[in-house]
């Protein structure tokens, strides 16, 4: 059914037709007609953020926790440039987001008009795709195509730049019959011959490991179910990247914990010593591989990924299967059920015995303290007191993020929102807002650091305005903890500008926004304080005062291999572990 309407009305209409119920945005001169169209309806709820970066992270949080496309709306110029960090974050973590940006009227483009910037030029390298809409005739197709591109294949952010005259122009709107891109068709089914080969390799494996990532989450609930089935059929050990946590339950007996730079001893050693690695929706990022030429030297590698460019990018694999994780796992599980079995169960038993020895090393241990709250302890208590609830966790970036990944355990996918690829400080609070909008009755906790939280603290106003009871759980060590830790590792403990000077009083800060502030520095009081936080129906800033100099361990120092980890009982002096070459890395 086609209707006459303005470009601005088309945008709102297309959002409705795409099933968008919430859009995060900030108005400005170049998007006023769209805001007028939003004013005249009530199907799409607009959440007014306080900074466009917040809109992007909120859309990410919404998308990551629902599996739907996140939507955001910002004005031209600074509106668009402020969104760039969030768009890049969504690109690196493959989060589907559609971002509508206003643009100066077509006839002013290129004249350095007020609040003009080359939005499609600036966002070309930080989006999966972007559009400049030059004519009202193109707008309906582009709007729907953008959602298709954002969610299909390897998901990512898409920008639609709409000049103000196009928003005012009148045209014919109809939902395109085939809301696909004319040529973009990602491959979903994997090559059956290759999947058969994978099954054969898996049956023969003596020391296998499943290395899973964010692609499993992106592929949807079916992928996580199939993954669990595959693990129970094969009894293979499984580890996951930061982005993939929750795809396999942390309580599962085959779970080795997260791998990589701050992964567990058992997962990293198993990666190093395995004879078959099955990478599922993971991309061999440098936080995972450590030193590339010493990465899992003795293994055959199978890589399942929807993005052909991920295969053989960092690590050469023996068998690359291009396809969607759920589609490939479906075939893999079916073939395994039909014909395969572990050829050498004794070898697998021996492998598990080895893994249990590594597990017994208890690499996540830390020195408890009766007087100071250890950050790991804080996360553990938070986990114990929230695990039986409908809980979603977001994080900022740094030590607290890694402690959260290590000590908070996820049973389900889509419960863990963190900035993995880009490592964006300031991600957690706006992401929590996005999550809470999608899940109004859930408990949403942003595990934060005192430095990160200040990067988007203005979003407290958003939380208050929309009565979003997000809980900000700050592990406050008065340092940019990860920076300080690296300065200890690499720069002789010269803590250049990593001390969080002149911190606000977080309790008073919470109160200034109209939220509740809680401070706790006593381990004996921590449980009560966390309970108080959970039971508060309003937003809370929890200032958890923790040990200042604790390092996040275990750790693979940069430039080292998986079997060269620093473990918690390494000693007090971790400086001098990294050689000159390692210092060059990030």
């Amino acid at each position, binding site marked *: 059914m086609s209707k006459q309407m303005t470009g601005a009305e088309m945008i709102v209409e297309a959002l409705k037709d795409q099933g968008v119920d919430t859009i995060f945005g900030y108005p400005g001169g170049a998007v006023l007609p769209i805001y007028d169209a939003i004013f005249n309806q009530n199907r799409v709820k607009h959440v007014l953020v306080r900074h466009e970066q917040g809109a992007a992270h909120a859309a990410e949080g919404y998308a990551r926790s629902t599996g739907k496309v996140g939507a955001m709306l910002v004005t031209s110029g600074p509106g668009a440039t402020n969104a760039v960090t969030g768009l890049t974050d969504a690109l690196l973590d493959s989060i589907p987001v559609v971002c509508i940006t206003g643009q100066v009227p077509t006839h002013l483009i290129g004249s350095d008009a007020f609040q003009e910037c080359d939005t499609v030029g600036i966002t070309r390298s930080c989006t999966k795709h972007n559009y400049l809409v030059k004519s009202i005739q193109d707008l309906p197709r582009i709007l729907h195509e953008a959602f298709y591109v954002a969610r299909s294949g390897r998901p990512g952010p898409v920008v639609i730049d709409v000049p103000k005259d196009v928003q005012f122009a009148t045209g014919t709107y109809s939902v395109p019959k085939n809301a696909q891109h004319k*040529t973009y068709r990602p491959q979903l089914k994997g090559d059956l011959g290759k999947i058969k080969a994978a099954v054969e390799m898996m049956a023969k494996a003596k020391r296998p490991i499943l290395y899973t990532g964010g692609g499993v989450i992106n592929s949807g609930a079916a992928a996580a179910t199939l993954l669990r089935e595959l693990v129970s059929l094969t009894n293979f050990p499984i580890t996951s990247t930061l982005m993939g946590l929750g795809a396999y339950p942390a309580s599962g007996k085959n779970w080795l914990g997260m791998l990589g730079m701050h992964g567990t001893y058992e997962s990293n050693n198993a990666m190093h010593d395995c004879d078959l690695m099955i990478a599922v929706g993971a991309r061999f990022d440098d936080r995972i591989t450590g030193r590339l030429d*010493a990465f899992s030297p003795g293994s055959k590698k199978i890589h399942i990924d929807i993005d052909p460019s991920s295969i053989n990018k960092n690590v050469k694999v023996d068998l690359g299967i291009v396809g969607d994780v759920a589609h490939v796992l479906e075939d893999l599980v079916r073939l395994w059920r039909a014909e395969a079995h572990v050829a050498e169960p004794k070898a697998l038993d021996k492998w598990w015995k080895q893994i249990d020895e590594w597990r017994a090393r208890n690499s996540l241990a830390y020195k408890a303290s009766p007087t100071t709250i250890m950050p790991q302890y804080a996360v553990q208590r938070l986990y114990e007191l929230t695990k039986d609830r409908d809980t979603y966790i977001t994080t900022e970036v740094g030590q607290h993020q890694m402690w959260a990944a290590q000590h908070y355990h996820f049973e389900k996918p889509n419960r863990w929102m963190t900035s993995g690829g880009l490592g964006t400080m300031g991600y957690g609070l706006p992401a929590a807002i996005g999550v809470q909008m999608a899940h109004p009755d859930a408990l949403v906790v942003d595990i934060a650091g005192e430095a990160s939280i200040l990067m988007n603290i203005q979003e407290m106003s958003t939380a208050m305005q929309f009565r979003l009871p997000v809980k900000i759980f700050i592990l406050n060590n008065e340092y940019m903890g990860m920076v300080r830790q690296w300065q200890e590792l690499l720069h002789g403990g010269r803590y250049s500008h990593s001390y969080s000077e002149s911190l606000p009083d977080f309790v008073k800060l919470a109160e200034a926004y109209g939220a509740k502030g809680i401070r706790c520095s006593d381990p004996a009081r921590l449980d009560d304080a966390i309970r108080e936080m959970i039971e508060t129906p309003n937003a809370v800033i929890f200032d958890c005062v923790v040990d200042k100099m604790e390092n996040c361990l275990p750790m693979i120092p940069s430039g080292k291999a998986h079997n060269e980890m620093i*473990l918690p009982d390494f000693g007090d002096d971790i400086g001098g572990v990294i050689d000159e070459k390692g210092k060059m*890395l990030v």
Partner: protein
Amino acid sequence: MNAKSASPSPTPASPPSPYSSAFARENAETHTLSVLVDNEPGVLGRVVGLFSGRGYNIDSLTVAEVAHESHQSRITIVTTGTPGAIEQISHQLERLVPVHKVTDLTLSVRAIERELAMVKVAGKGDARVEALRLADAFRARVIDATLESFVFELTGAPRKIDDFIELMRPIGLVEVSRTGVAAISRGPKPI
């Protein structure tokens, strides 16, 4: 206790750099890629931006619309890199939404490569005669002439053009304009 762990299997002998991947030690090769794209605003920017953003080389690049009805352009890119890098470049190009098809003409088929060059040569006396004689041998056409200069037009494989330019250098080469390589596969089938 020193907890720096010892694992059952040893790490390989000390490598040149922690960065080095399996590909880094391979030799660089020059490949010609044919890229079919939607002819829409910004598409060339996406392709070029991908090369600069990811640190790939462009040796030459040509582009023109080849199908008006379907608005498709064909970009021919000559690039140099290790086989691993070339494979990455192809896959990264395929990721771009307006890119239909990427063919590595160097890998998949015997391709014909042609380039057009205009070569300006200045000189008098014997040099002019020699320039004309060589131009004739290379089947270069004179497309501009003055009493002290020629502009030659020459079409051929890049190597032939290189050779011609080298021969003109001592005679009085002034400047060169080259189109970059256009390439097509042999035989009846499209790429």
